[in-house]
């Protein structure tokens, strides 16, 4: 009997490729490992999955058969070199792009997004690298952009907007002088906080973040990372794209590497090291002389 120990999401991915394993059926025993900690794998279903995602831009192949899974209460780090396909994958997950081939599953059900709005309606939110905030508008209006609280006759309920924004920021422990401040007057970290507040204002189940700390001052990075940890505690699944190993190893439960548009490697954070992950980014799996202090815990 062959025993293959693989992650649960890989098992689900494999299950969908039954034909490939058909001739081995009965001979293969899949030991499914829970993605993080001690959760029962049988109960746990990924909140968001992608199987065999391929994306062409004209003659360019940005993604080749990429598989992906995200669970509740989990932060997954996605790493890869520039052009590895991280951002393209995230834009597919958030509904901005449609995959050329492949299947998305949300809570186990196949889904197809025609626009980011479809994804948002399911609770998938994206925090864009360039933040996607309107600097000429105030904090409350940015949080509710596209989903404004309304009164009769399609009038905006400015008061409800202010109050709900303030309450939501308080919940996230984000402090601003006033929700009526223009976003253009905020610092990079404050803007990031507003972007995260916007992503989580409407019962988000998945938050996808593209380099949330790239443009921040050092002292603001920690605040944003703690905010991400806070999201996880609220039961939200978070996908984090980052180049910074410090960020990945501070907040993530699992890390996954893309290389040249394909899955390259992945592991729970506890079973890997910084130098190994950096190796993945560069496309090598050879053990890069591990150092004791690279190990987390």
């Amino acid at each position, binding site marked *: 009997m062959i025993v293959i120990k693989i992650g649960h999401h890989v098992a689900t991915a494999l299950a969908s490729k039954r034909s490939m394993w058909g001739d081995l059926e009965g001979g293969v025993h899949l030991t499914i490992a829970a993605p993080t900690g001690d959760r029962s794998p049988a109960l746990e279903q990924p909140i968001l999955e992608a199987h065999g995602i391929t994306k062409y831009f004209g003659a360019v192949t940005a993604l080749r058969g990429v598989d992906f899974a995200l669970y509740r209460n989990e932060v997954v780090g996605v790493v890869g070199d520039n052009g590895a396909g991280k951002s393209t994958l995230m834009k597919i997950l958030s509904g*901005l792009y449609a995959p050329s081939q492949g299947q998305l599953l949300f809570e186990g059900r196949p889904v197809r997004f025609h*626009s*980011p*709005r479809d994804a*948002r309606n399911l609770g998938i939110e*994206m925090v*864009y690298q*360039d*933040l*996607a*905030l*309107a*600097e*000429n*508008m105030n904090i409350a*209006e*940015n949080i509710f*952009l*596209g*989903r*404004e609280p*309304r009164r009769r*006759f*399609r*009038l*905006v309920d*400015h008061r409800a907007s202010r109050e709900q924004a303030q309450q939501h920021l308080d919940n996230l422990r984000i402090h601003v002088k006033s929700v009526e401040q223009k976003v*253009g*007057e*905020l*610092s990079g970290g404050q803007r990031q906080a507003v972007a995260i507040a916007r992503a989580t204002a409407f019962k988000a189940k998945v938050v996808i973040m593209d380099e949330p700390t790239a443009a921040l001052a050092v002292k603001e990075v920690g605040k944003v990372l703690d905010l991400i940890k806070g999201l996880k505690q609220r039961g939200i699944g978070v996908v984090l794209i980052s180049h910074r190993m410090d960020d990945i190893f501070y907040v993530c439960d699992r890390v996954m590497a893309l290389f040249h548009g394909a899955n390259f490697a992945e592991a729970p954070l506890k079973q890997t090291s910084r130098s190994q992950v950096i190796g993945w980014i560069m496309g090598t799996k050879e053990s890069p002389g591990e150092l004791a202090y690279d190990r987390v815990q």
Partner: protein
Amino acid sequence: MTASNDTASEPAPQDRPGLRVRLIPVLDRYGILLVIFVMSLVLYALQPEVFLTWRNVANIFKQTAVNSMLAIGMFLAILTAGIDLSVGSVLALAMMALAVANADGWAWPVVLLLGPLVGLMAGFVNGVGITKLRMPHPFIMTLGMLFMARGLANLISGGVPYTGLPDPVRFLGSAQIYLGEWGAERINLPVALIVTVAVYCAFWVFLEHTVLGRRIYAIGGNPQAARVSGISVDRVLIIVYTLCGLMAGFGGLIMAGRTNSGFPNAGVGAELEAIAAVIIGGASFFGGRGTVLGVFGGVIVMGLISNGLNLNNVSVFWQQILIGLIIVIAVFLDVLRRQVGTRR
């Protein structure tokens, strides 16, 4: 003595920037009123017998009514970081269409509605062209419409003016409501003034308090943000240019009423005056910034310039020079303001 001076000036280095920053939003919003007030004082000092008479004030509003209509439509386009170069031509087309229809013996309600309707359709074509034909910039599409609408206005009229319109059609542009005597003067309220105020109030509510209005600001601030927030940017832009065309059509109706005619070379260069009013009113060419009050102020400033210079018998050429100067100064002040006001 020196000691008391020191204590007096001591908090200044800390407080002054704070005060300046706090003043900015107030000046942003109401600075234009200050400009109008100062200009009025100067003009009053120069022509105390004429300037502040009701007749003259009403005259200013009558003369600026058309530019008011064009400028508020232009403001919408500029808010989305766009431009509508076709408003002058669309005004002429609307005016010609209703004058020709009237000459063909159509009933006055049809003639009355035809002007705004023609404007609306031209604006809709602009909007669809900008979004669905994916023009690189609204400049291109509306430049095309500038020529097409002007050509069409000449085509339907054979290039000659049509004079004589029924009173109901002229009502918005030329009617006056007699309010009573005040001193030795008869107080007549021009309907064009009421229309202007009503339109501006409506646009203020629209832009500040409706979902669509706020989305117009959002698109001007960051179209990408609006798009990923699920806002249908194309739909909003089509509405913006359609409204802009509609206001140009209204402008045509008012001008037809005032002049009791339609002439195919009406509104040549009017798009530039509308743009000037919007810019003087403090709107940003990069979109997302500006207020309805500011636009109204910009229109009035331009009206005051031409009125004041006319009253003082200054050559009309000086008006052009002055308006040009004021545009440059207004934008320069805005550049200074941004340096102080925003972080980065």
